[in-house]
């Protein structure tokens, strides 16, 4: 038992190095070892120091703008405290946050004043629904008794020997007081959560019970759902990329950056923490990682080490570590995506101790590793880029943003193959070798190398999701043609056809975009109509579960043999083309909108390749282009 606790302590100390699922900030570390005349700036996670991990908040008395008038202060406080309690109830995480007082602050919108504030007051021009800015240290610091950290003339640091405690407390002036001592860069000193009343001008109001709004009219936004999300940021958590937990559960991580405020289901599930949220809070604040104090085990607690293990490895591209690659762990037994994290630790540079500049690939990457905390079990790991779908690097962290600036936010999705097969050219990118972990034991060496792809795509940029022609009619089948010549050029050049890619989406975030089938077919275009024998797929996957707001891979089995057969067939008959087909379900799942899962469209691109069949009719060309791609592993 003691050994496990020590391990957890080591994790807690080491964890700020990795970006993981964490918000981050700069750590100015002194003269650069890489660029003369500049200062090195490491990117580190933000966190509450263990001495101050019982975080007290003050609720400002400004009331939320509700549909029929202001939401009452009591209802607001209840909703916000419920949001805190969702996090407080995690038995493996020691941090706790509570509303300590309710009063009229009259301090403007927010400020670095050592009052952790919950407010419905925001500056003019605020376009966000809510935000959770944290003020933190950007270099290691020694706090001395009497220090005035924010320069307002008020002492913020006390002598633990005098006060008889080594924990933060709220002083008589209502401000947090810190015990003297050493604090690491990234330590959060103040956090304020702002909920925006100004969006009333856009028809968005606050409410305490989720409601649905389709079409015109005021749009209610659930205070508690948004609060739970924002309080995750208050912990120091970054946005998660999990927006669809499984093929039967369309809900996502509470820390997914967007919520569908018109979907009751989405708001309700955002109120409830997902495994991913729980794991990251526990990773940063591991219960049982100290012998005394808030991190020590108490009644009802579960030690982090008894509940979690760490899967870790590297992500590389062209020999360089990748900053901000997203690694997701799906439990083999339940097929639920439990936890995701991001790779890499970044370095930047400063000429003057304030502004920060980006280096290059050779000096910006401190570490290529990722770590994700998972419960004991067996997992399949997937890798995807922060390519904007469903979220972009700037939406995640500074580390990911630097990766984006360095051109590391664009590579194809893949599973984690076995070690000899995990290379930059994979003919079976969908393969994901199971990884088993036992509690308290790390599983390391789970490394990824990002893949290279050749891409065939007829469509231009995505402009729309779905078409009215496919709504309300039965037996909708989308087909995208890839010409004989284009496919043969790839295959004759030694490339291997590995993947079809459909850009899918749903209207209601809590639903799953399930299609009847995805398939690869031979076919011809005759007199403007596609002739496809739907009874004779070359490869098919049924049902086919589409992602929400992202491209969904249709990995093709036995790709090497498939490619040989396809090459021979196309070479033998120049009139034959290859089609990627997506069949909608007639009995689709639906949320509040009542609308089906749909396929992405583009208003530009090569014409005459996108076909639509409805109600058993012929495949006629469609005016817009389906956003569908065919992907090949290039010749090595």
């Amino acid at each position: 038992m003691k050994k496990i606790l020590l391990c957890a302590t080591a994790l807690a100390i080491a964890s700020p190095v990795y970006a993981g699922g964490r918000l981050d900030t700069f750590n100015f570390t002194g003269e650069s070892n890489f660029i003369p005349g500049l200062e090195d700036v490491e990117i580190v996670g933000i966190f509450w120091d263990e001495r101050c991990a019982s975080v007290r908040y003050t609720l400002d008395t400004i009331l939320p703008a509700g549909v029929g008038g202001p939401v009452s202060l009591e209802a607001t406080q209840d909703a916000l405290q419920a949001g805190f309690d969702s996090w407080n109830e995690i038995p493996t995480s020691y941090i706790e946050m509570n509303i300590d007082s309710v009063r009229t602050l009259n301090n403007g919108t927010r400020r670095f004043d050592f009052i952790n504030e919950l407010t419905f007051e925001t500056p003019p021009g605020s376009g966000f629904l809510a935000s959770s800015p944290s003020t933190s240290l950007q270099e290691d610091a020694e706090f001395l008794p009497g220090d005035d950290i924010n320069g307002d003339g008020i002492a913020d640091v006390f002598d633990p020997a005098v006060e008889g405690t080594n924990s933060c407390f709220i002083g008589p002036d209502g401000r947090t007081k810190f015990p003297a001592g050493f604090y690491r860069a990234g330590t959060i000193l103040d956090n304020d959560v702002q909920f925006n009343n100004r969006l009333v001008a856009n028809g968005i109001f606050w409410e305490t019970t989720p409601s649905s709004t389709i079409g015109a009219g005021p749009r209610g936004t659930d205070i508690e759902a948004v609060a739970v999300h924002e309080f995750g940021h208050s912990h120091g958590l970054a946005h998660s990329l999990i927006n669809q937990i499984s093929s039967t559960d369309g809900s996502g991580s509470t820390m997914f950056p967007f919520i569908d405020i018109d979907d009751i289901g989405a708001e309700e599930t955002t109120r409830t923490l997902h495994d991913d949220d729980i794991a990251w809070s526990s990773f940063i604040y591991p219960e049982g990682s100290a012998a005394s104090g808030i991190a020590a085990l108490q009644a009802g607690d579960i030690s982090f080490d008894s509940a979690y293990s760490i899967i870790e490895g590297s992500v590389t591209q062209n020999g360089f570590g990748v900053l901000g690659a997203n690694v997701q762990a799906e439990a083999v037994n339940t097929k639920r995506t439990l936890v995701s994290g991001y790779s890499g630790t970044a370095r930047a540079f400063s000429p003057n101790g304030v502004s920060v500049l980006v280096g290059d690939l050779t000096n910006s990457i401190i570490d290529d590793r990722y770590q994700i905390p998972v419960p004991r079990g067996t997992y399949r790991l997937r890798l995807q880029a922060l390519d904007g779908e469903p979220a972009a690097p700037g939406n995640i962290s500074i580390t990911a943003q630097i990766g984006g600036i360095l051109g590391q936010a664009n590579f194809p999705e893949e599973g984690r193959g076995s070690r000899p097969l995990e290379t930059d050219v994979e003919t079976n990118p969908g393969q994901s070798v199971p990884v088993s972990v036992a509690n308290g034991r790390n599983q390391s060496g789970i490394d990824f190398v990002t893949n290279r792809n050749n891409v065939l795509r007829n469509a231009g940029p995505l402009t729309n999701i779905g078409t009215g022609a496919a709504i309300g009619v039965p037996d909708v089948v989308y087909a995208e043609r890839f010409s004989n010549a284009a496919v043969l050029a790839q295959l004759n050049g030694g490339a291997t056809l590995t993947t079809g890619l459909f850009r899918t989406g749903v209207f209601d975030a809590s639903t799953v975009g399930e299609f009847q089938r995805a398939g690869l077919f031979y076919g011809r275009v005759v007199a403007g109509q596609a002739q496809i024998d739907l009874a004779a797929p070359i490869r098919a996957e049924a049902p086919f579960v589409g992602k929400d707001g992202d491209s969904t891979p249709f990995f093709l089995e036995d790709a090497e043999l498939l490619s040989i057969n396809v090459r021979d067939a196309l070479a033998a008959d120049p009139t034959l083309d290859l089609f990627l087909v997506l069949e909608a379900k007639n009995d689709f799942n639906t949320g509040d909108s009542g609308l089906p899962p749909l396929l992405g469209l583009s208003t530009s691109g090569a014409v005459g390749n996108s076909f639509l069949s409805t109600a058993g009719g012929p495949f006629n060309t469609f005016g817009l282009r389906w956003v569908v791609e065919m992907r090949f592993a290039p010749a090595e």
Partner: protein
Amino acid sequence: MVGVVGANATTFVKLSFDELVADSALVVDGQVTATRSEQTENGIVTYATVAVSDSVVGSAESTLTILTPGGTAQIGRFKIGETWPGAPTLLVGERAFFFVENSVEAGAYQVTGFSQGVMEIVTTPDGEAMVARGNGGKPTSVAEMKQRIKAAKAKGRGKPIAD
């Protein structure tokens, strides 16, 4: 087409590409050349100077000032930073398409839709400048992206069926 709007929003409203363009006073291809932070009554803000190489929408001067929340401040012997989840942290050397709207401060713009309004431009090993996102996950040449932005501006704030 049906006029149903996908309604994704939380910390900020998720904008479609058309909305992003329509809501922006300027869209420029530019590079951050300097940043400075100030501690204000309501927290730290950062002013980024962007050298404009092309004004795709609107008429920008040769340099542009973009105001972002958060940044770095030296207060006494403490170096303090402010982190805003989802807000752009503009870094010197960063080249991007910047979609900006007027801020509350005269002469300074703010990024439209928080980080949604910054689309990084990267140079490939082949030397081609590409935009890695904002295009259905498809890397796009700078020239193609400019055409797309102009087309969206001409179209106006027409929403797609969903996000």
